[in-house]
């Protein structure tokens, strides 16, 4: 029926509007693929330039040949070298520690709240949701001066005090976790849990065998989003990290070169490539899940 209607010419002869469910014309296809090419270039070109520069000999930093020239791995060695006071390798370890602990805490605590918000009825639910949303909009900079004073008085701003970075990170990772999970949980077919009970499962079995496998993709996606958000955090880390605990974002921002006031571009691009590659791999493997996590809840349906 719809096909018939779509092909029937409209009364006032707007033939150009007859695009639906018809084979694409050559011109339209060309325009579509031109637009898609532009989007791909948008996403990849600056990133490509970072990799190309990271592979270029330091003497040819400002070479503008669009493909790799004077290829060397020296910059990657320089990035990890500690001769100039950079501790990039340590910073990578720190970022993993901070990211994993922050994500684990946010997930362990947030999963219960999200379950309650998605499934249970209780007074004050909207107040709680509003509070969590407000927390997600909270400016990190407002945490800095009170926490800086507190942490310096209890001597957390030097040595291996990872908690001085993890605790402030919870302030954005936990709200993110709770509302992403709430959106995922709300869309799950919870009737299946009851059906499983009817079929003789214990509550534990119904949860383990039926609901947990269904919830796994949502839990996993949320964990990835929380991890990326804390891996990429800079403002709080730049204030609360010591030389021992600084994460990669701070290490890259403060990367020093052979001479003061001279930016070691090629080494920084190599370091940037190393920091970004794990994220790119996640994006390649889990793009569908990440997109659904990012947009979860903003759209009904």
């Amino acid at each position, binding site marked *: 029926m719809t096909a018939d209607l779509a092909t029937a010419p409209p009364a006032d002869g707007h033939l150009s509007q007859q695009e639906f469910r018809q084979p694409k014309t050559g011109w339209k296809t060309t325009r579509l693929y031109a*637009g898609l090419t532009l989007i791909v270039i948008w996403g990849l070109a600056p990133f490509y330039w970072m990799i190309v520069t990271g592979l270029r000999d330091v003497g040819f930093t400002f070479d503008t040949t669009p493909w790799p020239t004077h290829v060397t791995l020296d910059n990657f060695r320089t990035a990890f070298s500690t001769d100039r006071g950079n501790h990039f390798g340590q910073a990578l370890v720190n970022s993993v520690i901070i990211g994993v602990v922050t994500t684990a805490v946010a997930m362990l605590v947030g999963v219960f709240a999200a379950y309650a918000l998605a499934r249970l009825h209780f007074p004050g639910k909207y107040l709680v949701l509003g509070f969590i949303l407000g927390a997600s909009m*909270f400016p990190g900079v407002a945490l800095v001066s009170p926490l800086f004073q507190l942490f310096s008085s209890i001597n957390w701003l030097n040595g291996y005090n990872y908690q001085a970075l993890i605790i402030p990170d*919870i302030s*954005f990772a936990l709200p993110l976790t709770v509302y992403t999970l709430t959106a995922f949980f709300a869309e*799950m077919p919870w009737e299946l849990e009851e059906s499983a009970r009817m079929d003789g499962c214990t509550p534990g079995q119904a949860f383990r065998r039926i609901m947990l496998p269904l919830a796994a993709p949502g839990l996993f996606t949320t964990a990835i*989003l929380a991890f990326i958000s804390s891996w990429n955090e800079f403002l709080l880390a730049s204030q609360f990290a010591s030389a021992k605990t600084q994460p990669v974002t701070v290490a890259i921002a403060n990367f020093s070169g052979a001479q003061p006031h001279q*930016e070691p571009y090629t080494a920084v691009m190599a370091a940037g490539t190393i920091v970004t590659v794990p994220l790119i791999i996640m994006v390649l493997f889990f793009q569908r899940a990440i997109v659904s996590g990012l*947009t979860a809840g903003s759209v009904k349906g």
Partner: protein
Amino acid sequence: MSTTIADSTTSGRAQGTPPSRRRKGGLEAGQPRQAFWLVLPTLLLLTVVIVYPLVKAIIMSFQKDSGLDPASGLFVEGGSAGLSNYKHWLLQQCNVAGGGTIPCPAGSLGSQFYDALWVTLFFTVATVVIEIVLGLWFATIMNRTFRGRGLVRAAILIPWAIPTAVTAKLWLFIFAFDGIANHLLGFVGINPLLWTGDAWPARFAVIIADVWKTTPFMALLILAGLQIISADVYEAAAIDGASKWQTFRRITLPMIKVPLMVAVLFRTLDVLRIFDLPWILTQGGGGNGHATSTLSILVINQIRTGFNSASALSTIVFLIIAFAAFLFIKFGGADVVQRPPTVSKPGGRRPFWRRSTTPADPSTDVAADVPATVGK
């Protein structure tokens, strides 16, 4: 026409409503107490990491900064400051050695408040407007059927995934005097710019880098909105002889209004607190020395000279952001938390201009309206 669309949305939502909403009465007994224990850990943790620092910052903002007076070199005791920290920023009053105040001298941090406020607002308006336009365009392209959907989606996620600190260093290199940006400008006969040195090029460098990084988020949220519009609606519009612009204005825009406004809300609040990008790209400098100093950068600079006046400034930043969020949710249609059905009567309490396009929907479950954001 709009009624038809509205009706189809309503029924679509009703079908998507989880069964928990329909269950009432006996089965819900005991739920409030269970929910209390489930929600408690999250609330306690957020109280520790957000409410406590916020309250402490407010208390600190009414205290004097103790330390050496930069003018007299004498040690000044702390103590209650009344509103002087707020007057310092908002009325540009700087303390002098003997007591009393003078207008803050040029070059002092105190005198930078309104510059920082305007540049932050300028960044916010410029980036969000550009992102809406580009995001709509990208989303429309990606909404068509084509081969290689996965490749395009992965490509557009890359700017989003790269840490902002790395993005800033990458664009610092691109905008270097001998860098690729000036090289490409050379092809069209434009002389090299001091991208991170002069005031306006530095501001545009920040805007370009931010737009590059965050347009994907906007595009993906808009795309998710576009994908729930049924093709039948467009067919009907085509049969009625609607023009391309009419179709966009009367169908697409109202249908994607909620996801679009949610994306705009979160992006606006993100840019209002922008720090990493201008800090690493230009150190807040450019032009006369602070052309790209945003409010957050000013707070961080101020912390080195006094916690308490920094706390007053960060409290002002918090209030500005809270006010922006309030405006969006109240007037902008960013329905991030829908009121419980019992409170919002259909059509009631809504401004008249929103009634026809977004009908109050009593069956909408709140959880479906919780938006997600990207990390920083």
